[in-house]
């Protein structure tokens, strides 16, 4: 049985395995986003973010530690508020969770803060601008045509690159 088949079987059969799997991914992706947002923000030091969020600096450090999934929704909302961004917590298929993980890049992760969030601040203006420019929901007509012309299933969104920079040392 392949490693992937074995994983699927465990996930199908065991509540504990599914819990561990989901916790592990959240435990990496949530701290990664917090760190990325902090570094890009006006509060690049943990102490600054802690002060704005009304939390202790040691807790910010803990929230950024990989695997630190033990955060309440209250805490996440407080951090989102400090970053002046929103937060979505929604239940999704595991395939969607895996796609999120595969597509997440800590280096490129960014979220428009409230002050620059034109769609939120002035949706009517954004909509009228798009209509006058021949745009549809933020996409130009030509890009809509291109998207719809793409063959279905051409890209596997779940596939991530496997060129591993990690090596195991042995034999010491």
């Amino acid at each position, binding site marked *: 049985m392949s490693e992937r088949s074995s994983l699927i079987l465990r996930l199908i059969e065991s509540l504990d395995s599914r819990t561990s799997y989901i916790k592990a991914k959240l435990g990496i*992706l949530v701290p990664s986003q917090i760190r990325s947002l902090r570094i890009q923000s006006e509060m690049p030091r943990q102490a600054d973010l802690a002060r704005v969020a009304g939390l202790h600096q040691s807790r910010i450090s803990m929230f*950024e530690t*990989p*695997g630190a999934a033990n955060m309440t929704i209250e805490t996440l909302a407080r951090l989102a508020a400090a970053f002046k961004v929103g937060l979505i917590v929604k239940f999704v298929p595991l395939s969607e969770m895996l796609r999120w993980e595969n597509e997440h890049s800590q*280096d490129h992760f960014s979220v428009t803060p409230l002050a620059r969030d034109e769609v939120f601040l002035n949706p009517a203006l954004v909509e009228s601008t798009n209509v006058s420019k021949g745009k549809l929901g933020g996409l130009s007509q030509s890009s809509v045509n291109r998207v719809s012309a793409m063959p279905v299933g051409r890209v596997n969104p779940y596939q991530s690159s496997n060129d591993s920079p*990690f090596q*195991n040392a*042995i034999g010491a």
Partner: protein
Amino acid sequence: MANGHNLIEEWYQNDLSEEAQFTFDALLKNQRKVESVLNWNGFKYLKGKPKEERIWQLDFIADKRQYRLLGIFGVGRKNAVLILGCYHKGDNYTPRDALEMARKRAKAIREGKAELHEREIKSDS
């Protein structure tokens, strides 16, 4: 010394819970995509003698345990070599001589006396 054992894989298989294994896999998957190691979550160079030998530590938490991965970089920091997995509580590493073992292994690698195994990062897909 180079007896063919893949010590990191043995640690992974024998000492890590399922949750810790999933977390370890997800951690490597995420860090691989981060260009600068200084932006790796949970990354730091160790202090004292290990620091002089450029041994670093990567922290992660799973099943309420503080795990530590110790490693060194290969050429140009594009190759991360994991040399020891352990966990940490209070001021203590388990195994207790983890740092000393890491220093010996780092030395063996740099002197070409230990063999490296490429680690495939699991994509789950």
